[in-house]
């Protein structure tokens, strides 16, 4: 049964889980076969895992924080957290986001309006700890009691019963990874409070001060990218092999040999993909090459460190790693003397390099950066490609990646493209800037360890499953193939896992893929269908 949890409860009862997630609490999913959720929806950790790692928030562990061995270690960690919080609240140390953070901490009027915006909170059956306000309120109360002058005295007057101990900190670290930073809550707040930012700042405090983050984001993510070249571990040499393979595959699929330009100096465009596309969805960068070749676009890829990886996990947890990656990417573009950098189908890469990096890159590193979507719209909608929409005569819906749509305002080009090349387009509801996150945002889609994937499937991804099933409810039978057009690598990773977990492909013939693949599938000059429906 769902328990009512107050912010102060985060410091109490370290031996008990704050909440239990049970199938009855989760919002129902509209599967026509009426199937029920597994019970429990989230597999418990093993006894060894429970003993080793903090999991008393909700029985899930993703940060894998080891329990301190001694009381002294515990006190040191608490002091480190407080030092980090002081830095987070100082203009000098946190100039990057100080204004927005202070506004958020000080302007919330506790109207709880933002909670209903959150797909995680709603999908969980309104579990208190997943309220956008809960996380922010915990941080706010710690600040008021332990940082602000007269805090401990005023805490008594205000009923602020939060205690700063290891339990609070460890649970807060995990709680910082129960939000995808989709910022739907921020768009609902009438006062300008941004609870998605609170998640970002908490993760930053843990990473930049205490060295605590998830392995997937840090060691295997941003560190690997900076050292090896790709967050997926793709090295420059491996990348060049993939390019050769791409050219062979394109010839096999289309009958035409297309040269994929690499390291071409002076090109108009440096196109940067998410390296996950090369590993898992090679048909996507291939489709870009086919389209650009057909339209005569002057572009190049890069085989240099930083040049073939659009990912920037630093966006999700660490300003320093974020800055290092954008500088590395910009240096590659500068060396190649391109006119602009173009991001392929990766949502957070769009936001990171085009918008947020805007106030990190100066001088000759400030090379123009834009999305692939305006150019693709021009090619498709202004007749620069020969297309036949009847080749895409199947139901299609459109996934709106949060970082491209709500967080950059690129809403219409992809819709105009899909309407031009598909005959049975229907929107998910809600869509556009009101879209729901896929549930894999802020790096969740790459987190596969312990029992976090179960949480991602049953809680953070739940609303997306509901939306997709509802979008296709008039054609849900397996005889009709259906396509979720997903112009974002991270969303695709989440879709892959959701469709497998809920058997959406096997039982209902629902597939996912990028936007450029749909465009190529509509190209008249390519005889064979490009979509493989796999």
């Amino acid at each position, binding site marked *: 049964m769902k328990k009512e949890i107050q912010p102060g409860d985060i410091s109490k009862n370290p031996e008990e889980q704050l909440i239990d997630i049970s199938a009855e609490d989760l919002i129902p999913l509209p599967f026509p076969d009426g199937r029920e959720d597994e019970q429990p929806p989230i597999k418990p950790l093993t006894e060894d895992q429970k003993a080793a790692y903090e999991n008393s928030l909700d029985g899930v562990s993703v940060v894998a924080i080891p329990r301190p061995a001694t009381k002294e270690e515990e006190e040191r960690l608490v002091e480190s957290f407080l030092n980090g919080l002081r830095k987070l609240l100082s203009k000098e140390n946190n100039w990057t986001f100080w204004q927005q953070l202070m506004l958020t901490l000080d302007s919330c009027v506790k109207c709880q309006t933002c909670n209903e915006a959150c797909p995680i909170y709603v999908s969980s059956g309104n579990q208190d700890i997943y309220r956008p306000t809960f996380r922010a309120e915990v941080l706010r109360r710690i600040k008021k009691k332990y940082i602000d002058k007269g805090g401990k005295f005023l805490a008594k007057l205000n009923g602020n019963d939060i205690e700063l101990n290891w339990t609070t900190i460890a649970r807060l670290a995990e709680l910082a990874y129960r939000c995808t930073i989709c910022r739907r809550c921020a768009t609902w707040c009438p006062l300008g409070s941004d609870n998605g930012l609170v998640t970002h700042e908490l993760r930053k405090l843990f990473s930049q001060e205490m060295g605590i983050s998830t392995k997937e984001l840090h060691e295997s993510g941003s560190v690997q990218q900076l050292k090896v070249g790709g967050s997926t571990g793709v090295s420059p040499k491996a990348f060049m092999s993939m390019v050769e393979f791409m050219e062979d595959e394109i010839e096999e699929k289309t009958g035409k040999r297309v040269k994929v330009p690499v390291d071409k100096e002076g090109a108009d465009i440096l196109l940067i993909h998410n390296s996950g596309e090369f590993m898992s969805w090679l048909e996507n960068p291939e489709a870009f090459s086919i389209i650009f070749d057909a339209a005569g676009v002057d572009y190049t890829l890069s085989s240099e460190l930083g040049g073939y990886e659009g990912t920037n996990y630093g966006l999700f947890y660490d300003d320093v790693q974020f*800055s290092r990656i954008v500088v590395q990417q910009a240096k590659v573009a500068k060396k190649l003397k391109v006119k602009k950098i173009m991001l392929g189908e990766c949502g957070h890469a769009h936001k990171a390099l085009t918008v947020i990096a805007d106030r990190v890159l100066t001088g000759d590193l400030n090379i*123009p950066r834009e999305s692939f979507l305006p150019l693709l719209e021009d090619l498709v909608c202004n007749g620069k490609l020969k297309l036949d929409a009847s080749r895409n005569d199947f139901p299609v819906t459109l996934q709106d990646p949060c970082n491209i749509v709500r*967080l950059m305002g690129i809403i219409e080009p992809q819709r105009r493209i899909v309407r031009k090349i598909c005959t049975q387009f229907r929107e998910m509801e809600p869509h556009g800037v009101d879209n729901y996150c896929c549930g894999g945002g802020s790096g969740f889609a790459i987190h596969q360890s312990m029992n976090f994937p179960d949480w991602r499937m049953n809680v953070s991804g739940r609303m997306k499953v509901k939306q997709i099933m509802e979008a296709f409810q008039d054609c849900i039978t397996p005889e009709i193939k259906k396509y979720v057009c997903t112009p974002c690598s991270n969303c695709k990773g989440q879709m892959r896992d959701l469709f497998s977990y809920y058997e959406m492909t096997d039982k209902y013939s629902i597939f996912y893929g990028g936007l450029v693949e749909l465009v190529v599938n509509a190209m008249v000059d390519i005889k064979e269908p490009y979509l493989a429906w796999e």
Partner: protein
Amino acid sequence: MGGVVLAIFYGSIVFCIIALIVRMVKYARAPLHLRWEFYRSSSTYELIDWWTKPHTSFWDKLKSVALDIFLLRDYFRRNRGFWYWLYTFHIGLYLLVVWHVFIFIVPVVTNVDSNSTVGLVWGHVATFLVFVGAAGILIKRLTDKELKAYYSRLHYFKWLFILVTLAGGFYAVQVYFGGNMVGVFSYVRAQLAFELEHKLNPPVVTALHVLFVSPWLIYLPLGHVMQLFFRYYHELRWDHVPNTRGSNIERKVQKLLNQTVTWSAPHIQSGKKWGEVAQGLPETPAGEDK
């Protein structure tokens, strides 16, 4: 007693003015932040070579801000039940604030020898709206499970205090001044003329009302109104404004990149400048992972 009221009231005005200025300057001087906007509709990023196209104009942003402030748009869209009371309260408050400006201007520019029915009705309607709105908000905060959650005990006291202040104001105008605006204007004129006898021996009703208003003047610079300044000042000045070479923004960014990093995690070179730290991972001995 009159001296005490005088000291408190004028002291609160002075505090209010100084604190407002101090806070506004503090907020205006917040460092330039990284861009973190969200969008309610299509942006220039939908266009090829967006950096050559005009970005969101200051007037478009100001229009959006004005609609937010005067219509409480997001509450209307997202929390309608609460909006009814909030809007009643706010619209009454705006009318009441302007009414106070009205009662200060009239005695200065006219002879105040005739009643103003419009002035009286305006004041009472405004007070009524604020009272009903505040009462509604207080009741909602006490009874609605969502609105009760995390709400500080001190704030309930604030709403009660508002209701008492409003009741005092109504009593002063309708009972003490007999619902006659001439009396109100004359009183205000005496205050503005700084008639010391009047100031040191104020009527009890008006003295009490002024004593209740003084805490609000002290609270104003510390309350949510200043948060709105904090938010909208930066939104109007910096949101959607791209960094271009040679711009003011670029100069500010370069200065910020020259600040020292003090974060302590192993992957960060504490003590170096931001610009240096952003060049890459710290050098490590071969085989050691950072």
